[in-house]
Each structure stands twice: as structure tokens, then as C-alpha cells.
């Protein structure tokens, strides 16, 4: 890992990138998609489906 400035730049890049991804995903309705899946019992997850 390069010096502290490089590390901070990397962190800032990932933080901003992460926020941007969440924002884009939310705008595309992906949060709704996650919720749709999570509010129904996932039969595969529990070993039935």
C-alpha cells in the first residue's frame, strides 16, 4: 500500500463509488427488488426449494 495519502484516496474512492452504486441502484428500483425477495420466505435458502 502506498503512503497515507494514497490510502486515503483509495478509501475516498471506494466510499464515493459505494455511495454512487447505492444511489444508482436505488434509482433503478433495486431496493424494491431486494425487498420483494426478502419479504417472502426463500425456500431455497431454508432447504426446501
Amino acid at each position, binding site marked *: 500500500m502506498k503512503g497515507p495519502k494514497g490510502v486515503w484516496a483509495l478509501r475516498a474512492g471506494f466510499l464515493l463509488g*459505494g455511495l454512487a452504486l447505492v444511489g444508482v*441502484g436505488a434509482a433503478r428500483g*433495486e431496493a*424494491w427488488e*431486494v425487498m420483494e425477495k426478502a419479504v417472502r*420466505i426463500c425456500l431455497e*435458502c431454508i432447504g426446501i426449494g
Partner: protein
Amino acid sequence: MLGVHRHRVKGERKRLSPRRALQLGACALFNGYALGFAKGKIFTGPTKGICVPVLNCYSCPGALGACPIGALQTAIGGQRGHFPFYVLGMLVLFGVLLGRGVCGLLCPFGLVQDLLHKIPSPKATVPRRLDKPARSLKYVVLAVLVMALPALASGAAPVPYFCKYLCPAGTLEGGIPLLLSNPSLRQAAGWLFVGKLLVLALVLALCVPVYRPFCKYLCPLGAFYALFNRFSLYRLHLDKGKCTGCSQCREACPMGVEVLKDVNSAECIRCGKCRSVCPSGAISHSLGAEGPPAGKKAGHAPRAQGKGE
């Protein structure tokens, strides 16, 4: 006063460590819908649209949020398969903030493994020639079961391969409680459930002699966070000026990290054992700082072994 304090410390040897309290608190927070366990139903509120940072099955009756690995497979696969902006963004944020601190401090399935390893029994060390390649397995699980196979199956109904065939957390947190409290689900259980029970039994049995085998070798979420461990905001620091090279940290590390060589190794789950045993106070942790926090510069007395647990 000092005597009273000493007496209290002696009398409270079994008091929860801050780390254990945090693990239990996180477990209760992520699975706070107690009614679900009684009714045999899952929570359907709006928080289910938010991913929790840990491997916590969204079909656990108590789960208040979504499992990021389950959500990732759903987004990638299925008829609507697409690049998982939302889930990936959340995982990146959790990763850059805490790295594998998520595994060591917040994960309920990690807590289960920790507690099982406390059962008095002979403890095993996996031979290095087997241990090192086996640690790469979790990256294969992430790449193949969580990403590649669901992506290849897109166009059909989404199949969460990891959840369906491997995830022991789903069986423990979702399968068993739901089947115990819901007769119709119990009737539907077949060979797949038996297979998943066997996987769970094997993982749990291995936890007694081996520390966190699932985290070390199989967890795809741990593999993802491992990519951020070297530069995450929450990190460990080794003050080489104070370090005497006694290697007690390496010997104490339950994840087998070479602490003196790489204190923020991809395998470090920030359990704090190394900090606890260091006799010279050379290891510290911080959120964001590049060196030891200012207050920790002066040597502090080593804490009793086990306090980091």
C-alpha cells in the same frame, strides 16, 4: 476503593467482553422480530429493502433486513438479471468502513462459531499445506456459487446456488426455526433439507476443534470483505518501536495471522486477541487513523488474556 474494584473484577470473571456484547447486540438488532419465531412467519416491513452487513438469512423469522449474499444472487440471476448496483454498493461501503471487522464483531453466524469453539475439547491446527490453499476456497465460492452460476442461469427463475446448496446460516437461522413453527413447511421438507442439515451439522461439529472453519474456508461474504481489509477505516496498528518481537500475538491469533508481518492481513477478523496478549501494548486499533490513536502512544499495560474475546 481499589480493593473493592479488584474484588469486583475477580467476582466478574465471566462478565461479557465488549466484543461479545457487540456481537450479541448485533445479533439481536439484525434479528429483532421476536414475534416471527412464535408465528413461524418472517418480517415483511420496509427495512427488508436494506442489506445488513452480515451473513444473516432473510428467511430467519426474526430478520429485519436482507442478507447481502442472497440479495446479490437474486440481482445477478433470474429473468431480470442485471449488474447489482445497489447490493454491491452497500457491500463496498461496509467493506471500506469495517473490512472483516464485520465478521469478528457483528456476524451472528460468527458468534455461533465462536461459542462452539469455547466448548472444552482438544483443539486442532489445520496443517499449513492444507490450510493455505483451503483459505482460497471462499473466493471460489464467491466467484462461482454467488456470481458466475446465478449469472449463467439468468433468463430462468433465479437460483441462489450458495443459499440452496451450501449456506449453513440459512439452515440454522431460517430453515430450522421455520420448520419447527410452521407445519406446512415441515411437510414440504425433503432431501435437500436433509443435505443442508448435514452441511450445517458438519460445519458446527468442526467449529469445536477448529476456530471458525466456515469463515476461514467457505464464507463468500468474508471473502468479499477480505479484499478491503488492508485499507478499511477500522484497522489495527503495530507500533514497531514498541514491538519486542515476542510473537505472542501470532501464537494467540485464532485466525492464524502472521501479525508481525501483516497486521491487517485479509484473514484478520479484528477479534482483538493479538491486542489483548501483547505484553508491550504495541498493537492498537482505530477508526480511520493511519497510526496508533494519540492516547495509545504511551505503552499501556497488557490486558488479561481472553479479554479480547
